[in-house]
């Protein structure tokens, strides 16, 4: 592995460390703060479950972040993660509650602006909406859960010591669940920007378990989070335990539960599949902020008790912090990218050009797009997504769907199926039919992603996506992941 790659990854690890130091406090802060669980116990449980969550179910939320902006050069990923980590660290220094999600989103938008990449407004709205929805949802869940628990306790008439023992056990279980969800949901923040430029290659353990490069990345990120938990989260945990609304141990449990449920809802691929299989609408898989979920849950309990004891001024400060964090991260990222590019002479993004060539025009016609939509642009080449977008807008207003299609087909991405690199993809992840199809394309060069995808489809039915419905969503998504993996592997170095 290249040494430079390791150096670049350190910023992701820094971000992971700061996330562990801060967000772990959301999971176990109230438990440790109320002295129900010892810090060492909390740190051990938290570390183990964060790593498990990151590796086992981290891929879901990371996908959305990957779509928001495909930071496609390692130096760019470094800067995005570093500026987000710095924003988190600075906010912590000033004692402001941190949202790692917002920091990374801000940093990615900073990169998008710098590299003239279009910000996917659809993914953006999805993420912004969850920033409003997740605290509200956490508040509602906390209120309902708290009412339920107090009612059960009233009926059960447990001994004070028995209640204490159950609450303790509940806090451990909820904390483990919370740590798992934190790992699954927020690993996308830590390592998501590195996915497109992952230095790892997929490998398979004895042909049974496929460990993707993403999972290896996430394991590394999970370890960084765990180190953050063990080394630096104690003080933050004690602050959270005492600084928020004074909570009883039972209320502390309700807060952790509500927070974990919200994080889980937004990260679970299993739940998505389950909902889809019954034909129900699914919840978008988006990285949500655990700080927001916790604050929402505490707010819910505070309101349930009539709003007394809640520090409204502090809540106002938190709200301001939520707006400020992405701005700081975005600005730091842009300045940092400029310095990286011009002082250290690093490639911080891989330019993505667009061209409306004859094959593209033919393909668009087959996709059912009116030829008038692109008239006058034939044969022209655009150096960036933003410029292409501007040219399209100047001509004629296209619907967002048509525009996305046009962008996808016109994107230049030259790749050659290098026979020497074929070994890298034979890890057992691709099916035999898929691998054979790929081998038959050996030596050929493609100028667009869709060309490779179509050539593969011609060679094998195994590369054809199934009908676009909820039940097939998971299969098609995996197919897309496999194609992304091929694009990364065979992309011509530029």
């Amino acid at each position: 592995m290249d040494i430079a790659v390791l150096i670049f990854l350190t910023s992701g690890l820094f971000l992971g460390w700061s996330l562990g130091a801060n967000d772990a406090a959301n999971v176990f802060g109230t438990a440790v703060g109320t002295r129900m669980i010892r810090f060492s116990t909390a740190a051990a449980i938290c570390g183990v479950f964060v790593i498990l969550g990151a590796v086992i179910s981290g891929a879901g939320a990371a996908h959305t972040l990957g779509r928001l902006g495909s930071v496609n050069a390692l130096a760019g990923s470094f800067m995005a993660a570093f500026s987000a980590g710095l924003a988190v660290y600075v906010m912590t220094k000033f004692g402001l509650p941190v949202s790692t999600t917002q920091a990374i989103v801000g940093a990615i938008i900073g990169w998008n602006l710098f590299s003239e990449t279009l910000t996917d407004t659809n993914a953006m709205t999805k993420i912004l909406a969850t920033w409003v929805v997740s605290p509200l949802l956490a508040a509602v869940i906390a209120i309902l859960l708290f009412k339920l628990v107090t009612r059960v306790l009233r009926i059960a008439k447990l001994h004070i010591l028995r209640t204490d023992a159950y609450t303790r056990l509940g806090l451990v279980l909820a904390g483990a669940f919370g740590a798992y969800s934190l790992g699954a949901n927020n690993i996308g923040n830590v390592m998501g920007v590195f996915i497109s430029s992952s230095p790892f290659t997929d490998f398979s353990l004895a042909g049974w378990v496929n460990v993707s490069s993403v999972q290896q990345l996430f394991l590394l990120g999970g370890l960084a989070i765990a180190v953050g938990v063990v080394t630096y989260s104690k003080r933050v945990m004690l602050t959270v335990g005492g600084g928020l609304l004074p909570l009883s141990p039972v209320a502390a449990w309700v807060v952790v539960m509500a927070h974990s449920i919200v994080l889980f809802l937004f990260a679970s691929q299993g739940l998505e599949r389950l909902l889809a299989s019954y034909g129900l609408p699914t919840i978008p898989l988006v990285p949500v902020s655990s700080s927001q979920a916790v604050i929402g849950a505490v707010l819910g309990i505070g309101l349930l008790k009539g709003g007394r004891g809640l520090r409204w001024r502090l809540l106002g400060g938190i709200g301001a912090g939520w707006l400020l964090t992405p701005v700081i991260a975005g600005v730091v990222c842009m300045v940092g990218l400029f310095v990286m590019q011009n002082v250290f002479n690093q490639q911080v993004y891989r330019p993505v050009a667009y061209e409306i060539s004859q094959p593209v025009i033919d393909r668009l016609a087959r996709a059912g797009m009116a030829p008038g939509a692109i008239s006058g642009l034939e044969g022209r080449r655009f150096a960036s997504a933003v410029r292409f977008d501007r040219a399209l807008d100047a001509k004629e207003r296209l619907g967002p769907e048509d525009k996305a299609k046009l962008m996808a087909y016109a994107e230049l991405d030259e790749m050659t199926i290098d026979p020497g690199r074929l070994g890298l993809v034979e890890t057992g992840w691709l099916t035999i039919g898929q691998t054979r199809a790929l081998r038959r394309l050996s030596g050929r060069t493609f100028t667009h992603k869709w060309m490779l995808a179509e050539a593969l489809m011609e060679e094998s039915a195994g590369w054809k996506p199934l009908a676009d419905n909820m039940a097939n969503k998971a299969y098609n998504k995996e197919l897309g992941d496999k194609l992304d993996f091929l694009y990364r592997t065979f992309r011509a170095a530029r």
Partner: protein
Amino acid sequence: MALFRRTKALENEIDEFLDKLSESALVFRQAIELYLSDGPGAGFDEKLRQVNELESRADQLRRGIETQLYSQTLIPESRGDVLGLLENLDSILNLLEGTLWGFSIETPDIPEEFVKDYRGLTEMAVLSVEAIVMASRAFFRDHETVGDHMYKVMFYEKEADKVSTKLKREIFGQADLHLSHKMHLKSFTEHIDNVADKAEDVADRLSIYAIKRSI
């Protein structure tokens, strides 16, 4: 599951401590009854011995409970309250024991006309102790019903005050008693009345603890 086994054992110890306090109050009533009817003697001494034993067992239980609460960091929110409650209940037990020792050592001579009031005063003191034991049990298991027992403690304490005031007035109203005798009788009136007063003090604290638990 070891956690729950330990919890169960500790619950039992707290229950046993409260049992000992309640039992001591009942034996206290028997002892005073024996003293008032038969004067000092073997019967009274036996009851005194029983209260002594109950008191030392209760002390032992209390220390064990307190040590476990702190060494295992149990009920971090309420352990200070539980500690205060147990020590105050223990001081009621000490008052019961001290009063009986007073009877045993000083053997007060109680004239026939005061016996009925001493009996009544003892009854009120014992009932207040029983009520505070009930309130304490409720605090541990079902804190919302603490109030149901609390008003009884207050009621018995007031009754005890009325009886003791009346008794003291009558004692000092007697022309044929020496002042020293009057003072002696007064001090025993106060000994017994103190038990009810202490029960009320504990009840006042307990009502605060119960409010804290409900938040």
